[in-house]
């Protein structure tokens, strides 16, 4: 293991990490003894492939690394197995929420339609003992609606408040963690406070759904199937809700790849699994066909916020959005012209290098976008390291192209048209502008400054 502050000749090369391919969790240096060595080895061998945003040691503590690692198959099966034992006090209701960016992976990998993939995945999980399988699109609906409203409010405050604009998207945990741990308040004050779909799903399952089912939140074990490992770190995020319920909103995140591993280990082929309709949060109702939000490779924030802002602020109805790729295909620009003037300037910045450039321009005061959809992974969430990597750790371009095709073919639906969401705002959240809605659907970010060593290294 790399010894961060090593200045000794004896720093043992024997401990070096063999794995040079993936950006694995390189556990923090320790000048302590053998106790911590075992944990280091475990993390390194686990090949937890975090995004480039989390590649260095500032972004994750050793303790967090251990908790990220714990979110694995073993944990999942531990809970499933406890359900089979007699001690009912240890029984839990197992709920698995599927991310919309994970479904195209299963569909492309097994040559299924996205609806077949969803239903078979549901069938497989239920055959293992999972009680409910949900789709997180409804949580994304809430997240997008809140983000839209927040953008409009920030835009209206732009001359009074320094940090109102640009607004940065908040759904990507790699980006958020990087911003909080490495960047300063200069950046975090610009991040949209709406919670990510995963966090909202946590509140929906442990709050709304638990109440409907007369269950206490700690009786539900909530698993999320996600396209990346960064989501495991996000699951550790604490909120007032966590304290309120004394239970994490998301107990375990498993990547799409880990689910496939479970299938392989159980000798199950997707072809042979029976299709079972995906559940909804509403008693007895099953989910219909899979829908998605607009947006080519992304989770839809840019598209929906742009269209909403164009309408609300300028009275313009935008039907189709034209993207202009700038320096590289992961930095794209979208503008709204009105009466010959550019009134809105949005951007999509994916991947570490584009995030760097964005931050540098922001620091220099040369950043002229109103909103940026920021994602840690080039190519967007479909290219998350929990699904699109081939054996040698390189992105599987063919599979990615297939996934994009599958994703684009899914019919898009506006979050505004989800009647369940409207109803929940009224019934569960006591209104769109209520304190409950604010507390449940928003969070806050803070820049944490790590102490830096000021000692000059000897070499």
């Amino acid at each position, binding site marked *: 293991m*790399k010894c961060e502050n090593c200045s000794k000749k004896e720093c043992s*090369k024997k401990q*070096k*990490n063999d*794995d*040079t391919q993936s*950006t694995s969790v*390189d556990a923090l240096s320790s000048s302590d003894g053998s106790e911590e060595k075992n944990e280091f080895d475990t993390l390194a061998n686990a090949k937890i492939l975090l995004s*480039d945003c989390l*590649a*260095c*040691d*500032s972004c994750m503590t050793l303790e967090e690394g251990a908790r990220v690692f714990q979110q694995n198959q073993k944990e999942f099966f531990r809970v499933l197995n406890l359900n089979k034992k007699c001690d009912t006090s240890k029984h839990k209701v197992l709920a698995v929420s599927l991310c919309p960016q994970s479904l195209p992976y299963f569909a492309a990998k097994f040559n299924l339609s996205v609806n077949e993939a969803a239903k078979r995945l549901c069938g497989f999980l239920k055959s293992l003992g999972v009680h409910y399988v949900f789709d997180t699109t409804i949580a994304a609906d809430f997240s997008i609606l809140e983000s839209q409203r927040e953008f409009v409010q920030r835009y209206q405050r732009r001359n009074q408040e320094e940090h109102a604009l640009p607004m940065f998207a908040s759904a990507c945990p790699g980006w958020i963690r990087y911003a909080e741990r*490495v960047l300063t308040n200069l950046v975090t004050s610009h991040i949209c406070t709406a919670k990510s779909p995963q966090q909202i799903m946590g509140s929906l399952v442990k709050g709304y759904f638990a109440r409907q089912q007369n269950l206490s939140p700690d009786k539900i074990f909530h698993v999320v199937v996600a396209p990346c490992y960064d989501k495991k770190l996000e699951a550790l995020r604490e909120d007032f809700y966590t304290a309120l319920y004394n239970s994490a909103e998301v107990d375990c995140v498993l990547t799409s790849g880990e689910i496939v591993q479970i299938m392989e280990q159980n000798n199950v082929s997707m072809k042979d699994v029976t299709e079972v309709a995906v559940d909804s949060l509403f008693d007895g109702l099953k989910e219909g066909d899979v829908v998605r939000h607009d947006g080519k490779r992304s989770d839809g924030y840019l598209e929906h916020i742009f269209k909403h802002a164009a309408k609300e602020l300028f009275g313009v109805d935008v039907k189709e959005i034209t993207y202009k790729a700038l*320096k*590289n*295909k*992961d930095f794209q620009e979208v503008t709204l012209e009105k009466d010959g003037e550019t009134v809105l300037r949005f951007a999509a910045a994916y991947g*570490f*290098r584009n995030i*760097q*450039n964005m*931050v*540098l321009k922001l*620091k220099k005061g040369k950043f002229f976008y109103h909103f940026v959809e920021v994602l840690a992974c*080039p190519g967007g969430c479909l290219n998350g390291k929990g699904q699109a990597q081939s054996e040698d750790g390189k992105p599987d371009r063919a599979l990615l192209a297939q996934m994009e095709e599958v994703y684009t073919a899914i019919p898009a639906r506006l979050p505004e048209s989800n009647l369940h969401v409207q109803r929940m705002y009224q019934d569960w959240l006591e209104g769109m502008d209520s304190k409950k809605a604010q507390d449940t659907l928003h969070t806050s970010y803070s820049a944490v400054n790590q102490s*830096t060593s*000021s000692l*000059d*290294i000897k070499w």
Partner: protein
Amino acid sequence: MPEALSLLCRVSAHPESRCWALAWSPSGALLASCGGDRTVRIWGREGSGWACRAVLADGHQRTVRRVAWSPCGQFLASASFDGTTCVWRRHEHGFEVVATLEGHENEVKSVAWAPSGSLLATCSRDKSVWVWEVDEEEQEFECVSVLSAHSQDVKHVVWHPSQELLASASYDDTVRLYREDEDDWVCCATLEGHTSTVWAVAWERSGQRLVSCSDDRTLRVWQR
């Protein structure tokens, strides 16, 4: 020995501190040095000796580890343990900072200009190699790629003499090569063989061979 070199002069370059690196300007008229006193110094011939023409202070908060001249000789890059790389532009009366490249997590160990002058590479103890694109007019530098192929501290980066091919040397005992692939940079080769830290690499002028030196007390010459 007829090919031996004889000492011309001895200069006390960085008072009370280590002089870490040197670089001749492309024309050979100037010599840049950098050191533990956080400065970069420019030296020129004066009579039979060398005199200090400029002291570039206030650029860095910590040791300056490496300096590199742009191929045109108008710019000088300085890489520092403070995590930043400054780009200085030369003008009549001295040098001024035109850009500060930030982003590395910790100490920057090396900086190098591509032969075309339009790309710059930096590497750091944070294990990554960054490629920057130079916009000479705007004097803007944009990050084009962040390469995290090495598993340990990266000590040195050097560009191929004529191609946009980059080599890096690391504490992980390997040398890696990088080139552009579609719209991003990738590590296209890993040279294994050294059994300890590779401290530096150098390309032969024709670009056919590369030599690396290591803590394992060997020099290795590599060929395609």
